[in-house]
């Protein structure tokens, strides 16, 4: 290798080193440490009982109905909210794509949910749906005394709504970026051949934005699976609305049980790996086309 090539190589590594170290510091090392912690009896309230526990923490978590219920809740919220986001995001992307006027206004207004603090949005929706301080129950067709957060699935409805509101814009922007790469000549040609608007959407738009859709779905699914802020603010996990992230938080910070909490953390990590694997293998998402967004 030439001296120039060698020095370029060294410079490349040198420039990347700080960022790589910063990224590994709080991911690779802690996840390894979480695995170590999860194999121990470690409850900070009873530090003297510390000891090696083998896989017993995993046994405790996996045999508890709480873990499975929370996993169900998390998957339920993830699947419903991501499905709605996809449909709504596509609708908004099409509206923005075919903008006659006011494209800037739409872009500005959809960026607000993206930028707003999740906790703030959660409070806003919570106040809106609260029976005493809200306005939703005073709308026509809605029961005036409906206690949205008093029952599991109505609480889910509000949680999902808040999640959808917050994250649809990101989905819409990714899909819009996909739409703009489509050659408009294709639509003109299809029109000449007598294709209806629906046919044009089915036969031209969908196949061509499919890669963009899959990448957006993967990122949104993983993001939705981590749902924490909205549930924490709205119900705190009451009425059986807990997500796996809330469960991990309660064990780690609420009960200071680092052993059990870390087992939950590691299991969540494994779930995320499985979801990513399914997308990459099952749907053929080409990760080279992906990029982090939120």
């Amino acid at each position, binding site marked *: 290798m030439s001296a120039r090539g060698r020095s370029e190589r060294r410079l*490349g590594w040198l*420039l990347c080193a700080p960022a790589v170290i910063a990224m590994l510091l709080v991911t690779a090392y802690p996840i390894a440490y979480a695995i170590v912690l999860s194999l121990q009896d470690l409850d900070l309230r009873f530090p003297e009982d510390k000891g090696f526990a083998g896989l017993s923490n995993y046994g405790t978590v996996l045999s508890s109905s709480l873990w499975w219920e929370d996993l169900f809740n998390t998957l339920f919220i993830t699947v419903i909210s991501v499905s709605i986001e996809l449909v709504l995001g596509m609708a908004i992307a099409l509206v923005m794509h075919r903008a006659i006027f006011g494209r800037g206004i739409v872009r500005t207004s959809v960026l607000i949910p993206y930028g707003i603090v999740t906790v703030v949005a959660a409070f806003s929706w919570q106040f809106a749906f609260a029976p005493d301080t809200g306005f939703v129950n*005073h709308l026509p067709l809605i029961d005036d005394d409906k206690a949205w957060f008093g029952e599991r699935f109505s609480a889910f409805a509000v949680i999902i709504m808040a999640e959808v509101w917050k994250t649809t814009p990101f989905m819409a*922007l990714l899909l819009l970026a996909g739409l703009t790469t489509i050659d408009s000549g294709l639509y003109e040609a299809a029109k000449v051949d007598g294709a209806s608007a629906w046919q044009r959407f089915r036969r031209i738009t969908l196949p061509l934005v499919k890669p963009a859709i899959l990448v957006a779905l993967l990122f949104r699914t993983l993001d939705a699976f981590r749902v924490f802020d909205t549930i924490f603010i709205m119900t705190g996990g009451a009425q059986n609305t807990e997500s796996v992230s809330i469960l991990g938080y309660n064990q780690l910070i609420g009960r200071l049980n680092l052993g059990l909490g870390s087992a939950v953390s590691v299991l969540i990590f494994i779930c995320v790996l499985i979801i990513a694997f399914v997308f990459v293998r099952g749907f053929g998402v080409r990760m080279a086309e992906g990029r982090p967004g939120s």
Partner: protein
Amino acid sequence: MERGTREYALWSIGLLLVLLFALIPVIWIISVSLKSPDTLADGRFFPSEFTLDNYETLFTGGIDDSPFLKPLINSVLIASITTLVAIVLASFAAYAIARLNFPGKSIILAGALAIAMFPAISTVGPLFDMWRTLGLYDTYPGLIIPYLTFSLPLAIYTLVAFFREIPWDLEQAAQVDGATPFQAFRKVIVPLAAPGVFTAAILVFIFAWNDFLFAITLTSSDAARTVPAALAFFTGESQFTAPNGSIAAAAVIVTIPIIVFVLLFQRRIVAGLTAGAVKG
């Protein structure tokens, strides 16, 4: 292309729906923040009488007794420092990835992508334990470090996408024309790179400003607690008053910078979020 009246009307309705969808929760929280305690539960969307009391109570008591002022300062400083450090580190890495030839480039990009998908909750327990041992628990660096980790992938991807578009040959051309290497860098490359750097900075700032999970797990007092976490601990003035008004007022204040960013830099933010998302 022809645009009929029908299409015009449909588009207007679509536009209106999108606007309503996006803005209702924002207008609602502003409205709650302006309601007096007596009218808080009147069930109206807009306040029947306006008051700024909710904003006033946020700041009464000064830095020591106000439940909001110290967290606000924490939020501003932590998000700003995170942004600054993340942009410097990400610019180095993105420059190397966009311009230099070295093995391991694609591993770094793939690794960054993997970190973007990493569940933050999985790191909370270990960090909680490590930070308490290292004395980083409830400090600024204790939050800045995880924010850096999780915002770097976004910053690197955004910057790589922008840096790949820069015509770097201009730098040499300027040097041929007699500019010193530093002049060539400052007068040619910096203005070309600035929009990308700026875009990445906005995205990182929004990320750090928004975080709740680390803020609530790695802090225990106003020493480093940021606004989103502080909001979860807000209580009413007495135990008989709901904190809704003051939460709403605080929420409006932390939303203002975001709205300003969005209004001023919407094009940039969209470009940043979608840069490299689709191969053109």
